[in-house]
Every structure is written in C-alpha cells, then in structure tokens.
C-alpha cells in the first residue's frame, strides 16, 4: 500500500523569504500523481500544485514550485517570496494513475507560520 510522509509538523518563514516543505512517499507503481493542498484556518482544501510522475519537468505555479525526485520518492514544495496569506497547513497527497478508485492518500500535514 502507498504511504505519504511529511516529517515536518511545523515550519516557519519570514515574510518575503523562501521555505521548502518536505514530502516522501512509498509506492511500487511507476505512474502516479502527486499534489500539494493548502488548508488555511478557514479549513478549505485548496489545490496548490500537481505533478504527474511521468513528467520529468518540475511543476511550477507562480511562487510555488516542486522538486520532484522520482528515484528518491521525494516531492518537496518550495514557496518563494512568502506572504502572510501563505500561512496554512499544507498536505502532500498521492493518487494512483491507473486503477479505478482515484482516492487521495495524504501525508500528516505541515503547519506553516509566516512571520511579518
């Protein structure tokens, strides 16, 4: 069974600085999707970025980018020019490419604090 691990329960960053959140996963599959979701105090689940495992190029979305290391099964999220609105809990998630369920498997989450 696939597992997702986020080893940093809490992180903090100074406003305008850069922070990296770590995520590792375990799978025997070769094709899958990886996601980062943001959950602010309002508790909404907001998709930040996604990566298809068959793509070698790291995904980027404005200030958010990932470092996808398939062999190492690592999927870290880099937030550049951190803003106060980035303060939230961040979840890494795995989804199989094949199969007929589509379920997401989540990590434990990392709470990000942004200091002014």
């Amino acid at each position, binding site marked *: 069974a696939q597992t997702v691990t986020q080893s940093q329960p809490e992180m903090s960053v100074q406003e305008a600085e850069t922070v990296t959140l770590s995520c590792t996963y375990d799978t025997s599959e070769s094709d899958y999707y990886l*996601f980062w979701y943001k959950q602010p105090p309002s508790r*909404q689940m907001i998709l930040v970025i996604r990566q298809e495992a068959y793509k070698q190029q790291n995904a980027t979305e404005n200030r958010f980018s990932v470092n996808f290391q398939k062999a190492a099964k690592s999927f870290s999220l880099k937030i550049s020019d951190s803003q106060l609105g980035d303060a939230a809990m961040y979840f890494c998630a795995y989804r199989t490419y094949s199969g007929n369920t*589509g379920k*997401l498997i*989540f990590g434990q989450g990392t709470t990000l604090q942004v200091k002014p």
Partner: protein
Amino acid sequence: DTAVSQTPKYLVTQMGNDKSIKCEQNLGHDTMYWYKQDSKKFLKIMFSYNNKELIINETVPNRFSPKSPDKAHLNLHINSLELGDSAVYFCASSHLRDQPQHFGDGTRLSIL
C-alpha cells in the same frame, strides 16, 4: 457559483442521534468522495462513488451509509453517533481518470 457545496457547515448533536450531511457538485464530474479529517488533522478516504456506483468503501463502521441519488450528489448518513465520530467531513469530486479533486468547505461534526 460554488463548485462543491456541503450542508450543513456545522453540526452539533447528541450521542446516539442519526444525522446526514449533503454534498452537491456542479462541475460535471463523474466521481465523488467522502474524506474524514480527525482531530489531528489527518485526512482519510471513506467512500467514493463513480456514476452512482460505490467504488471505495474503506474500513468504515456500517453506521456510516453513503447514498448517491445521481452523479452530482453524494450524501452521508450516520446512525447512532458516537463521540469518536467528531471530525470534519469533506466531500470532493473529480473525473475518475482525471484530476485534481475539488473539495467542499467541510462539515464540522461535534458530538456532545
């Protein structure tokens, strides 16, 4: 327009009661999901329906019964509520063979 909407947003009730949470999506997706987020913020899949057919039923007590009248709706009924059922329940939707999943705002269930 809200893409995935859940009602109610908050639900406070007594132990032993029966309650339902409703979910509707207007994205035209064919698959809907229920996730549970516990007090430690851990998210876990509970159920999934694809075109009204149950495709995921993770190890969930049979007091929980999902119902999908059509592919735009997925409701969750919970019988004989227990203290351990206190959590935030999220509904989500997507195309089965496409992603990502879009989430509702969650329903916070508190059992007294």
